[in-house]
């Protein structure tokens, strides 16, 4: 153990000295010798020997096994190019999409997925070159039809989902909407018009106030108030 210069639950900015000594670190921090600095704007969390900075902003950087929502932007010879909100385009090969054999020379791939279609997919590989591989095997629904998409900061997805899905289930219950949250911060909502508006409002409120405590209660109040 070493010295700590800041308290838990504080907002940190890049370059702020958090502690000195043998700590374990996760998230937006970097080390220099024994000193530990924050590298991003985030919420500091200290649990025993673990220093954690939860970033409050930033673009989506894909990780293996993330479930993401993407939009098809191009059709290639043997797969699709998918925008998943990351700085890199992702590739969805035919082999990871269709279970039956397809003769690529004879079949038009736009029959299965066309440009601008929304899909739910899993990131199966992020190599060092950042050529991201997607797969839709064992995922239902593969294609998201209708509904609307809202985009939030990917670092706030855990708050939208809540502990064991408590937050998202509450929103689903109150608005009667079908909601799918991608790890990349894209959220697909389908339901009645008023339900969609209500759900959007709730999710945007969570994004805006994700670092405030007592959020579940606040969202519940808002959803109940909006129902009247």
């Amino acid at each position, binding site marked *: 153990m070493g010295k700590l210069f800041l308290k838990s639950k504080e*907002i940190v*900015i*890049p*370059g*702020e*000295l958090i502690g000195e000594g043998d700590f374990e670190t996760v998230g*937006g921090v*970097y080390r220099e010798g024994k000193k530990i*600095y924050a*590298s*991003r*704007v985030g919420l500091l969390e200290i649990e025993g020997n673990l220093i954690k900075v939860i*970033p*409050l*902003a*930033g*673009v989506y*950087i894909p990780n293996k096994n993330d479930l993401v929502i993407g939009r098809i932007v191009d059709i290639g010879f043997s797969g699709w190019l998918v925008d998943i909100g990351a*700085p*890199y*385009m992702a590739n969805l090969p035919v082999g990871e999409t269709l279970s039956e054999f397809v003769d690529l020379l004879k079949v038009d791939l736009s029959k299965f997925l066309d440009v601008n279609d929304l899909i739910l997919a899993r990131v199966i590989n992020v190599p*060092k*070159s*950042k050529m991201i591989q997607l797969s839709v095997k064992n995922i239902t629904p593969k294609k998201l039809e209708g509904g609307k998409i809202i985009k939030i*900061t990917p*670092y706030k997805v855990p708050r939208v989902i809540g502990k064991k899905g408590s937050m998202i289930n509450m929103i689903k219950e109150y608005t009667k909407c079908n909601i799918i949250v991608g790890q990349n911060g894209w959220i697909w909502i389908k339901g009645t018009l008023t339900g969609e508006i209500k759900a959007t409002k709730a999710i945007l409120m969570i994004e*805006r*106030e994700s*670092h*405030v405590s007592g959020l579940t209660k606040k969202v519940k109040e808002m959803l109940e108030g909006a129902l009247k």
Partner: protein
Amino acid sequence: MRSDGRKNDELRKIEAKVGVISSADGSAYFKIGNTAVVAAVYGPRELHPKHLQDPEKSVLRCYYNMTTFSVPERKSPSPGRREIELSTAIKRALEPTIFIEEFPRTAIDVYTYVLEADAGTRCASICAASMALADAGIPMRDLVSAVAAGKVKDQIVLDLTKEEEDTEPCTDVPIAYMPNKKWITLIQLDGEVTAEELREIIKLGIKGCLQIYEIQKKALKKKYVRI
């Protein structure tokens, strides 16, 4: 005493704000005296054309621009020699602070617009840009603070105004500084000074940067504490 009533080691009045442009990933507004700058950061995002991509790290692109109404005489909006040079200077001042190796094959775009110019626009741009970068959630080693110090007639002064810059003889030294790392990332010199005086000017400039850093820090934290 100086023409605007400040002490020699006193900064002009500073105003800093984060998150002023909703469509940008990160943005900041920085005003020092009569100099006002707004900065917007986009990215890391895909870089096109592809041959500009670096497989090892992200490419930082900075654009410094002065609005047509920022100076008494209308300024042509096209970037000239001065704008291109300052864009590069700002890029070099910011690059050491960013962990660019975390985002291979991408670009980070930094746009700074001078809304009002009264000397020290490059320093104000660097201050605003570093705040906007932090606001965009880009991993950084430290914030960058910048201010000009110099010598007007025989006085060593901090944070020169346009009026002071135009008096003869005048030496102007813009300094960008990373307060926690203690790195100087930009230093330029326009005029004549002795080595001894330069040392004094740099010391004064760093003192000013530390004051600016506190304001930047407060502005960044304020965005989240406010709610």
